[in-house]
C-alpha cells in the first residue's frame, strides 16, 4: 500500500467506586431510571460537588500500572457545553494539569504505545431515544471516569485490538474498572489519519466517537482508512470531522465538522480544591497494586515451568490466578496444580462473569493436598482425576473421599500376587503374547490396574507380568 495508517485512542473507563465522583449516590449499573440521583448529580441550583477520594486513588493506580508520572497537584476544570444529558451544562474534568502524564503500555511485540495523559472526570447521563420522544436517565451522571489518551502510535488494527484488550485486562486485574464495553463502562474515541509511506507529518485526522466494541472499532478504522486513502487518491483533502460509526452499514458518518467544534470555555472549577496526592500516598497506592499480568506470566514460566499457553490461560482472570498462586504456594508441584485447574476447573464455567467469579467448591488448600498425594506417589493420576471430579461435585476434601486403602502404597508382594492372578485368569491373552502379539500384555496390565483399583504402577506391573510369563 502507498499509504500508512496512524491511530490514536482516547479511552474512557468508569472507575469501580461504590459511589459517584461528587456525591454519595450509587454507581450500580442497570438501576431503575433516575433512582440513583441527588441534588448534586442532578446539578440542582445551589448544590456543590465534593470529591470522592477513592476515585482519585483508583485513577492514580491506573496511572501507575501504565507507567505514568502522577502529579502531586492537579486541578479540576469545567468543560462547558450544553446537552440534555449534562444537567449542570458543564462537565467537571481536568484540562491543562491532569492527574497522570507520560506513561506507556507495552505490546507483545515489545512496541510501547505511549500514554500522553490520564485525567479524571465525571460521566454524563444517558439519553434513551424513543420513536417520538427522548427520555433521560441520570443514574450514570457523575459516575467517575478516567480518560486515557495515547499518542498516535498505532500503525495497524491489530495493535489497536491488542492495546484495548490488554488495557481492559489490566484495569480489571488491578480492580480499577470492570471495563465492560457492552455496558459502556469502557468506551473509545478513535483518531484516524493516513499519510504517504515514508513521510513524517501526520495526515488530517478524523475522530470516531464512542466505540463500544473492539470488533466495531476495527471495522470503523478499516472503513475510515479506505475512505481517507480514496480521498487522497482523488487529490481531495480529508476534513477534520467528528464522526459516528453506524453499525448497520459499517460506515462512518459525520457528527459535526471542525467549524462546528464546540468551544468548551475551560476554566478552573471554583467549587473544588486542587487534587493533591503526596509521594507517600502514591507509594501506598503502588503497594496496593497486585502483581501485574505480564510479570505473573513471566514467573509462571520461569519458576513453575509452565508453558506460555498455560500461563496465559491462568492469568486471564484475576481470581483464577490468585487461586493458582495459592495452590502453587501450598503444593509440591505447581505444574500439576495448573494442569488440574486448566483441565478440570475451567470447563465448569461458560460465561465471562462466571469465570471472573470463579466460584469453585474446592479450596486451594484442598487442591494442593490432592496434588501432593499425587506427587508423593500415594495415588496415581487416574485416581487423582476422578477424585477431583468428586471433590468439585461434593465439595468434600481428598482425604474424605479417598479410603486408607486407596492411599496405602501397593506392596511388592501384593503386586506379585495380582500379576500372578492376571496370568492365571487370562490364558488367552497370555497365549497371544507368547505367540508374538506384544500388545496383548496390555490386557493383563489392565487387569492388574482394575484389581488394584488404580494403585498399581502400570510400568512396574508390565515388567512384573513379562517376568512371570517368561
Amino acid at each position: 500500500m502507498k499509504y500508512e495508517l496512524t491511530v490514536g485512542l482516547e479511552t474512557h473507563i468508569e472507575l469501580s467506586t461504590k459511589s459517584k465522583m461528587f456525591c454519595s449516590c450509587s454507581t450500580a449499573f442497570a438501576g431503575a431510571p433516575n433512582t440513583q440521583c441527588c441534588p448534586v448529580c442532578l446539578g440542582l441550583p445551589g448544590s456543590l460537588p465534593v470529591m470522592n477520594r477513592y476515585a482519585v486513588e483508583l485513577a492514580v493506580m491506573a496511572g501507575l500500572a501504565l507507567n505514568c508520572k502522577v502529579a502531586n497537584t492537579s486541578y479540576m476544570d469545567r468543560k462547558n457545553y450544553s446537552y440534555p444529558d449534562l444537567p449542570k451544562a458543564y462537565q467537571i474534568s481536568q484540562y491543562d494539569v491532569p492527574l497522570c502524564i507520560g506513561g506507556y503500555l507495552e505490546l507483545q511485540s515489545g512496541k510501547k504505545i505511549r500514554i500522553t495523559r490520564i485525567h479524571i472526570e465525571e460521566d454524563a447521563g444517558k439519553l434513551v431515544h424513543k420513536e417520538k420522544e427522548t427520555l433521560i436517565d441520570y443514574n450514570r451522571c457523575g459516575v467517575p471516569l478516567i480518560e486515557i489518551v495515547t499518542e498516535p502510535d498505532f500503525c495497524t488494527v491489530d495493535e489497536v485490538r491488542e492495546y484495548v484488550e490488554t488495557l481492559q485486562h489490566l484495569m480489571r486485574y488491578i480492580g480499577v474498572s470492570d471495563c465492560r464495553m457492552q455496558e459502556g463502562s469502557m468506551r473509545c474515541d478513535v483518531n484516524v489519519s493516513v499519510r504517504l509511506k515514508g513521510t513524517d507529518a501526520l495526515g488530517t485526522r478524523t475522530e470516531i466517537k464512542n466505540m463500544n466494541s473492539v470488533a466495531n472499532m476495527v471495522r470503523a478504522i478499516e472503513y475510515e482508512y479506505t475512505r481517507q486513502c480514496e480521498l487522497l487518491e482523488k487529490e481531495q483533502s480529508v476534513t477534520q470531522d467528528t464522526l459516528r460509526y453506524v453499525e448497520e452499514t459499517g460506515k462512518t458518518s459525520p457528527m459535526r465538522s471542525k467549524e462546528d467544534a464546540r468551544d468548551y470555555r475551560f476554566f478552573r472549577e471554583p467549587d473544588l480544591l486542587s487534587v493533591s496526592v503526596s509521594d507517600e500516598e502514591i507509594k501506598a497506592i503502588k503497594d496496593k497494586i497486585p502483581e501485574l499480568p505480564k510479570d505473573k506470566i513471566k514467573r509462571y514460566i520461569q519458576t513453575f515451568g509452565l508453558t506460555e499457553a498455560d500461563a496465559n490461560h491462568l492469568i486471564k482472570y484475576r481470581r483464577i490466578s490468585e487461586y493458582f498462586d495459592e495452590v502453587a504456594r501450598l503444593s509440591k508441584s505447581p505444574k500439576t496444580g495448573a494442569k488440574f485447574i486448566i483441565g478440570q476447573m475451567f470447563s465448569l464455567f461458560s460465561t465471562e462473569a462466571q469465570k471472573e467469579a470463579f466460584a469453585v467448591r474446592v479450596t486451594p488448600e484442598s487442591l494442593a493436598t490432592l496434588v501432593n498425594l499425587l506427587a508423593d506417589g500415594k495415588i496415581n493420576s487416574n485416581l487423582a482425576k476422578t477424585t477431583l471430579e468428586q471433590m468439585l461435585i461434593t465439595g468434600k476434601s481428598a482425604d474424605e473421599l479417598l479410603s486408607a486403602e486407596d492411599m496405602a502404597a501397593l506392596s511388592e508382594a501384593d503386586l506379585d500376587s495380582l500379576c500372578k492372578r492376571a496370568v492365571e485368569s487370562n490364558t488367552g491373552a497370555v497365549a497371544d503374547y507368547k505367540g508374538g502379539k506384544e500388545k496383548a500384555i496390555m490386557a493383563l496390565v489392565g487387569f492388574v490396574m482394575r484389581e488394584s483399583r488404580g494403585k498399581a504402577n502400570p510400568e512396574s506391573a508390565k515388567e512384573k507380568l513379562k517376568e512371570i510369563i517368561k
Partner: protein
Amino acid sequence: MGRIEQIHSLLCKKDISCRELTEEYLNAIQRDNPELFAYVTVTAQEALTAADKIDRQIAQGGDIGMLSGVPMSIKDNISTRGIRTTCCSKMLADYTPVYDASVWSKLKNSGAVLLGKANMDEFAMGSTGENSCFGASSNPYNTALVSGGSSGGSAVSVSANLAVYSLGTDTGGSVRQPASFCGVVGLKPTYGAVSRYGLVAFASSLDQIGPMASTVEDVSLVFDSIAGGDVLDSTCNRDYKPDTYKTLKDDIKGRTVGIIRQFADNNSISPEVKSSMNEAVKTFEDLGAKVIMVDIPEILRSVPVYCVISCAEASSNLARFDGIRYGYRAQGDFMSIHQLICKSRSEGFGKEVKRRIMMGTNVLSSDKCSFYYDKARALRQALSNEFSRAFSQCDVIIAPTAPTPAFVKNRVVADPTVLYMEDMCTVCTNLASLPAVSLPCGYSAQGLPIGMQIIGDKFSESLILNMAYKFQQATDFMRTSDWGVKL
C-alpha cells in the same frame, strides 16, 4: 443590647410568646410589605408552626438558644426545602427546592423562625434591588429611593423591622451596599467561612452568605451560628469555628486602622461620604486606635477584574437553566431541543442577567480567554498580594461601602459599566477573599444613611466585628424606623 438578645430575654421571661411575636411580624409584613416589597414569599404557616414549637419548648421549661424563636428572613437565592426559591427570576419563579441550604439547616436547628424569602436583584446581579422579576424593593428611608442590592429585600426587611435579621449573599458587595443604603449592619465573611451549599451560585469563587441585622451584636451572633466547616462544601474551611461574640467588646486601644489612599483621593466618592469617613477616623482615634494610610493601587482595577471573573463564572453557573428539568419553559412548537432552550432562556432571564452571561461567555471563549479571563485572574492575585502587604502594616482597613447614599429609582444610565463602577469600594474584598462588615457611619444632608466598611485579613471576623462594635457604641447612627414592629 442587640435585638436578638432583647427578644431572647423577652421570650425566656415569657413577656411575650413566640407566636405573639411572630404574629406581630407577620401583621407588620402584611401592612408594610406592599409598599416596601422586602418579601417575595411570606411563609406565615411555616413561621407559626415553628413559633409554636418554640413556645412548647419554653413551656416545658427547656433552655432555648439565643436564636430560638427569633423571626428572620432569607434572601431568595438560598435553597429552602418546600419553599419556592426564585432568585427573583422568571426562570425560577415556580421552582421549589427539594433540599435545604446548609446555612438554613443550621439556623433551623437553632430554632429560627423563617418569615419569608427576601426580594433581590435577579440571580444577585445588580446593586439597586430593581432587577427583580417581581418588582423593586424600596428604601425604608424614602420609598422613592432604591434599597440597594442585590440583597435589597434582606436589608429592607431588617431596616423596616420586618425581620430581626436576614441572610443575604455578597458576590461583589451585595450584602454591604444595601446594608449601607438602608442603615443596617451587614457582614461579608471571609471566602470559605460560611458554607455555600444551597446558595444558587452567581460567581462561585466570590459568593459568600452573610448576616444582616440592625446591630453588630446581632450580626455577630448569627455569623457564629452559620460559620464553620461543612462536608458539603469543599471550599469551606473545616477548621474555622469562630466565636466572634466572645471578643466583641474587647478593647481596641493600640489597634492600627488603615485607610486606602486610592479611595481617599478618589473623586468618584461623594464629599458627604468622604466627610463621614473623616469623622470615623476621628472616632477610631478617640477609641485609642492609630490610623495610617495604606496603598493598594490594584484596587483601581478591581471593577473590570471583578466583571470579567464574575461574569465568566456566572455564564457557566447559569447555563443549567434550560427549562428542561425545572424552571421556565417557553411555549410553542420547536424544531429542536436547542430551539426550545434558546427561547426559554431568552424569555426566562432578565436583561442584566443576559448581558452578564454574554460577557462571561465572551471572556472565556478560546480566542479571548488569555486576554480577559487569564489576565483578570493574575490581577486578582496581585490585588490579594497588595492587601496582604497592607495587613502587615495595619490590623484592619476602613473604607466607604458605596460612593454615595441611596439614589432614586429608575435612574437612566446609558452605559451599564458606569453602574458597575459604583461597586468599586466593595468588589475588592470579594476578589481578595477578605471579610468586611458594613455599618452606618453617618447621615447625608437628606437624612440618608452612609455606610462604612471595616475590612480584615482572612478569617479575622472576630477583630472586624470587635472594631465595628466599639465604633457602634461610640457613635449614634443606629436609627429606629417608623416601619414594622415596635418592640
